[in-house]
């Protein structure tokens, strides 16, 4: 599905990834791996979304 580069991982890790991708509701191992890597990169680029942070701040009684 990637139509792009291939990455090698160890077989036992692949089996674990496969099991988890099914549990997590992904349609394929490729899809799960791609999304997981995307999330990692996004986290490294920044943490919570702005909306989530604003929601947190607004729960404080001192502001509205």
């Amino acid at each position: 599905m990637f139509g792009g580069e291939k990455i090698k991982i160890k077989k036992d890790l692949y089996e674990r990834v496969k099991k988890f991708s099914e549990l997590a509701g992904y349609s394929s191992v490729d899809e799960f791996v791609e999304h997981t890597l995307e999330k990692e990169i996004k986290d490294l680029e920044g943490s919570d979304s702005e909306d989530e942070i604003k929601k947190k701040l607004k729960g404080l009684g001192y502001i509205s």
Partner: protein
Amino acid sequence: MKRRNYLKVNILAGTGLALGGGFSRPAAGAGNTGKKVIVLGIDGMDPQMLRKYLAEGKMPNFQKLIAQGDFKELSTTIPPQSPVAWASFITSTNPGRTGIFDFIHRGPKNFPADLYLSTSRASEPEGGKLRLGDWLVSLKGGKIENLVSGTPFWNYLAEYGIPATVFRSPSDFPPFSSKANEFSGMGTPDLLGTYGTFSYYTDNPPKNAKDVTGGEVFPTFVKNGAAKNFIHGPNNTFRLDPEKPFEETGGKKIYNYEKLKIPFTVYVDPVNPVAKIVVGDREIFLKQGSWSDWVELKFPLVSKAKSLFGIAKFYLKELRPDFKLYVSPINIDPKNPALPIFNPEAYGEELVGALGRFYTQGISEDTKARTYNVLNDPEYWTQSQMVGADWFRALRFHLDRFKSGFLFFYFSTLDLGQHMFWRFLDPKNPIHEEALKSGLDSPVEKLYQQMDHALGMALEKVDRDTTLIVMSDHGFAPFNRCFNLNSWLLDNGYTYLLDPDKREKTEYFDNVDWGRSRAYGLGINGLYLNLEGREGTGIVKPEQEDWLLKELKRKLEAVVDPQTGEHPIKNAYLAKEVYNGKFVGTVSPDIIIGYRRGYRGSWETTLGKYPKDLLTDNTDPWSGDHCIDPTEVPATLVANKKIRKADPNIMDIGPSVLEEFGLKIPSDMEGKPIF
């Protein structure tokens, strides 16, 4: 150490908090060094109010303590906000060194996108594997940081083997990895990662339902005698939403996570005003107008072995004619805490073993539910009294086992009560008359008397080897008028908008023309320059900084409220003149606004709105405040010994405690002993 589940082990590993080898630290009193120091921290206890109730003979235990020792006003921090003041209490250093200046801070490089609560923050992950809810996403593989810089004074006690327990200190989330027993206080989130999000299920949603902050309104209808809905937990970032796992936008997949939720059904009795609520395998019977005990909420993640645990209270407000069910913010379950709220973990286990479940959210009193009329005054009173009851039970537990060492015990209820009930006291408050019709009788006075009762409990433990200190972090004042700082900056040419016609719709500074704007207000008391080299959008050149700050100070202090003839701003403090330390000019605001009694920064200005009017009446039930000039709201200091220091300061308490135990006061502490 009992590791409750895999999930928790990983979170804690990520936080970098070492929890020791599985035993509670020596409890305050478990050893027997002979000496005892008890500090009761009563947030918001105002010396003027205390004097008034003393004069009326309503505070007999305070009268007794003062007769034994002393009573003085306690100078507090600029600004006198709780996180700021308690951070200086904890470390005996000024805000320039604690790094805490307001409830809200910003990262200047990415401002206004980068806003955060000042005392704790989730740092960027470092490659871990777990994801939980909104808050926990960032914790995964990363760590939660307590942003208070400096050493808690109780660490020095622990180093010398003096048992120390610190119960609910603000600015102590996550607990300092000290050798003391600690239960985190103000700053501790709920299970959603917010600072309190209630749920309100009703077939008659209020008109302002979309504007509600600090809560969610869920339309819920009774059909065939039953109302069904869900308790909404955090996102489950382990799983995609089974109904809609992704959306495609512009050829790109946007994944949707499963929303953790627990179904519940309310079976309404056809005749009587009672209902049965079924949540998971739990059945709760409630009369209209009654509250449940804690209900455990288990949110499964990937498998049953990995779950998030929360607790909530249900309040059946009304069954007929309307259906109204309030569910409290989901507190972190102290029995299975998903975040580090105890240090060490075994201390939490001892508390749960002795007390059962209790509130864990940092500010447990649900002021937002009152503000939006989801709870009325008597209902809010009941809710806040349940919080207070938890603290009284905990105080009894700690006092009963206290034999030696240091005990700090914190009460929140008076502070929140004065915020919400000051309108009962002040005829000038815009909604004073309405408050008097609420059916509540003298709530503030009752709260002061409850604190007198708490002191009475502590006095029972006082012997000749005991030093007892009662202190607050600030006093209190009416909050009748709101000052729109950002509006003032806009109207006086310090800020420009990209589209002036959209002024009233501006929020989170989203319409600000940063290429022309020289200053902005953020938080309750902070004013910042848009400084070149610091702010990502900075335009004020360093050589312009000093004169611009002086100009702002002069003009702000000269503002007059046409309705009252008063100057709303008593002092505009220049950070460089009132603080010292590495956080001055980096994290700190450049000016701290010291409002005059009766005024405060408006609700709108705190997060970057620009209302048309500079000054407005405060019609919110949140009617008392202290985020003003510190000289207007000094704190309270009472002790069973003569206080010899002429002008005691909140930074003096830590050194005083150390001296009581005969310890040397570290040179980096700014406070001096009071006795």
